[in-house]
């Protein structure tokens, strides 16, 4: 074999996609999706029933959520959600200390898994009051499976704390990543990595805002976790592409920056697509087999992976070409 690593033959394969020639199209697509996402976030904020960019779930608003697995052997007894909410509305709760009694006039009742399980969302109840609700519902919706119930109660103050700590950790993670990249690369790269990151986070939030508007989907603390993971993943993806671009520019090549960026993106394209693919596989397994608890969490992560790959293959490197004067 011959040693063929001279610069002239360094790129045996030709460009697989010439990013800079279609950078305007890339920007248009990204801008359009970001605008649609922002519209979703704003309309959710303007919606009188939500009043927030995303529909906050129990974790953030506080309240009690009761899930009951029904005995369905051989088949579940017929059940209408309205029958359950009527029972709850009539219920007189036991008093707890000096606290005012929670109002049960608007319970939210959902039947999941073809009526096999029952989900109740109520204002914040004490432990004893939660048990009273379960006992009251049993004659209508029971019998329930032994050991198949879950009761989550979150006080309103805890919900606020959770929201606060999620936001703070998101910002701290952003800042930490920015500092690291400016240290390892330079500020230009750090700025673009953050642009790509903001792009990914806004789009995933936007999709969930639209889901909240149309399907009443609520975001919980797991969604905040998903956002943070997307942040880490998106930067990871972008950094690999940037690493290649830096490697090329440091070799002192006299090719124009646009071409160097194109070459770097082409060289990392397989890697980015393979990595996204292999990350998506376990996530899709979670979506299909993971059960209801992790369902939307896995979907948020999967969306983040897809959008993150786009921003690191297309958006971030194409923005980098802006720094070079056009005629160069």
């Amino acid at each position, binding site marked *: 074999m*011959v040693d063929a690593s001279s610069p002239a033959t360094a790129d045996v394969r030709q460009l697989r996609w010439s990013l800079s020639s279609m950078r305007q199209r890339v920007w248009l697509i990204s801008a359009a999706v970001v605008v649609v996402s922002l519209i979703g976030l704003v309309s959710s904020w303007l919606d009188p029933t939500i009043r927030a960019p995303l529909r906050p779930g129990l974790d953030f608003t506080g309240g009690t959520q009761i899930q009951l697995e029904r005995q369905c052997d051989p088949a579940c007894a017929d059940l209408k959600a309205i029958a359950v909410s009527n029972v709850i509305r009539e219920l007189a709760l036991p008093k707890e200390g000096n606290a005012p009694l929670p109002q049960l006039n608007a319970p939210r009742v959902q039947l999941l898994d073809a009526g096999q399980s029952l989900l109740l969302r109520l204002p914040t109840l004490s*432990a004893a009051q939660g048990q009273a609700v379960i006992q009251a519902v049993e004659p209508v919706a029971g019998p329930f499976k032994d050991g198949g119930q879950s009761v*989550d109660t979150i006080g309103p103050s*805890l919900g606020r704390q959770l929201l606060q700590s999620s936001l703070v950790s998101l910002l701290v993670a952003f800042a930490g990543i920015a500092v690291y990249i400016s240290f390892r690369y330079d500020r230009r790269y750090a700025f673009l990595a953050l642009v790509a990151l903001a792009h990914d986070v806004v789009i995933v939030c936007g999709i969930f805002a639209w889901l909240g508007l149309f399907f009443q989907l609520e975001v919980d*603390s797991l969604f905040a976790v998903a956002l943070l*993971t997307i942040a880490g993943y998106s930067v990871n993806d972008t950094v*690999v592409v940037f*690493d290649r671009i830096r490697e090329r520019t440091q070799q002192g090549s006299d090719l124009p920056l646009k071409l160097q960026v194109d070459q770097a993106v082409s060289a990392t394209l397989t890697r980015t697509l393979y990595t996204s693919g292999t*990350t998506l596989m376990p996530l899709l*397994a979670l979506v299909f087999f993971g059960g209801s608890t992790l369902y939307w969490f896995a979907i948020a992560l999967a969306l983040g992976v897809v959008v993150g790959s786009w921003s690191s293959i297309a958006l971030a490197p194409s923005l980098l070409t802006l720094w070079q004067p056009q005629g160069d």
Partner: protein
Amino acid sequence: MARYQGWFAFVLALAIAAGMFLLRTPLELGLDLRGGSQLTVQVQPAGDITRVGSEEMEAVKAVLERRVNGLGVAESTLQTVGDTQLVLQLPGEQDPTRAARVLGSTAMLEFRAQKPGAEGDLRSLRQLRSQVRAILRLREDQARSGDPDNNDGIDFDQLAEAQKLFGLDGESTSETDQLQQLLEKVNGEIVQQFEPAALTGKDLVTAGRQPLQNNPNSWEVTLSFNSDGAEAFAELTKSIAGTDRLLGIVLDGQAISEASVGPQFQAAGISGGSASISGNFTAEEARELEVQLRGGSLPLPVEIIEVRTIGPTLGAENIRRSLVAALSGLAFVAVFMVVAYRLPGAVAVVALSLYALFNLAMYALIPVTLTLPGIAGFILSIGMAVDANVLIFERIKDELRRGNTLIRSIDTGFSEAFSSIVDGHLTTLISCAALFFLGTGLVKGFAATLGIGVLLSLFTALTCTRTLLRFLMGYSGLRSPNNFLPNSQLPTPSA
């Protein structure tokens, strides 16, 4: 070559050690995986204390710990979370009602002497109280036996009047709730008829309980004091012995019972340092009060801000589902890697299995309590671990396409991929650190497993994969570039 054989032996030994360790040490499962109850308690500032410091937290925790032990739930744990919160975990407990009641109240026990001249008010208040209690007991019996409501001997006019007096009219709650509210108001009003506390639960040594001799359905709680308490109790009883004034027993601002002290104690008071409270307790109520009094009173009030209960079958279901997801995800990835990268792909699958094994061993070693989000973090970290391998193999392919020799391509591939692997892993680690140190509960569990995963992935990709690959390259039969790339993509040697 000997260097790689040394490494190979090291990796092998590590894998065996991890496997052995895992067999001996079972993983700790969170409540969402094995069922149970979790209560979060917020300690609140009160009185002179405007900020809850670590000393106050210690004091509150000590009291709650004694109460939790009194509950007798196996393997219960109480941990401080953040600056002002405590988390109690009760594995297997399906009904946290009792735990919530026992934890939530301050249990401030006081003994007070009646104010002189308050006999008249006190008599009518106590009479009202016993009437309300009687109705409540009656309703309970009726509910239990299923008899229709029987209103014999209930003076509804008097009750209505009393309710109006305490400002309780017009609330649309059930009869029982109205009576309970009235009872609270009356008990609070009775406390007003007494002097400030002469003796508190601080001087209590221990508490017990026993059924009353004349009525086994009614229980009393027995108390014994230390020497200071015994002295104060003797002093207090001496001051009211033989008069019309009563001894009041107050718990958390509510009068629970009053007693008269006979004239025979006029000289020395009731000495010996023991007393009993018979406040019309059921067996269960007496037990709870005993547990609370034994634990001592809380130095600061607490509020229960979070209760999570999950049944054991739901927990088992969660384990099953996430296992299926993790295994099928891994299987897909394994097939993909072998198809895409041939021999190194197979090596990566072995390295990834080792990675999964090391991860689990780390969870057992640290130990990390495994929760559902924790498992999600683990599954996601597999994706990151694969990424490192993909980066390396792509570089190796690039080098081979340039016509480099196999061994040189492998070495260059690893060293070229190194910087992007480290950068990528470190940025993920930064978000993990932010999540772990600033997040709470579920978020922490996720950050912990993802962070451990990322660190281990650095190790397995840079040592395990490399060692295995170099080790296999010792066999000439495997040393063909065709095991890495299809022949069509290799440059022709004549170039």
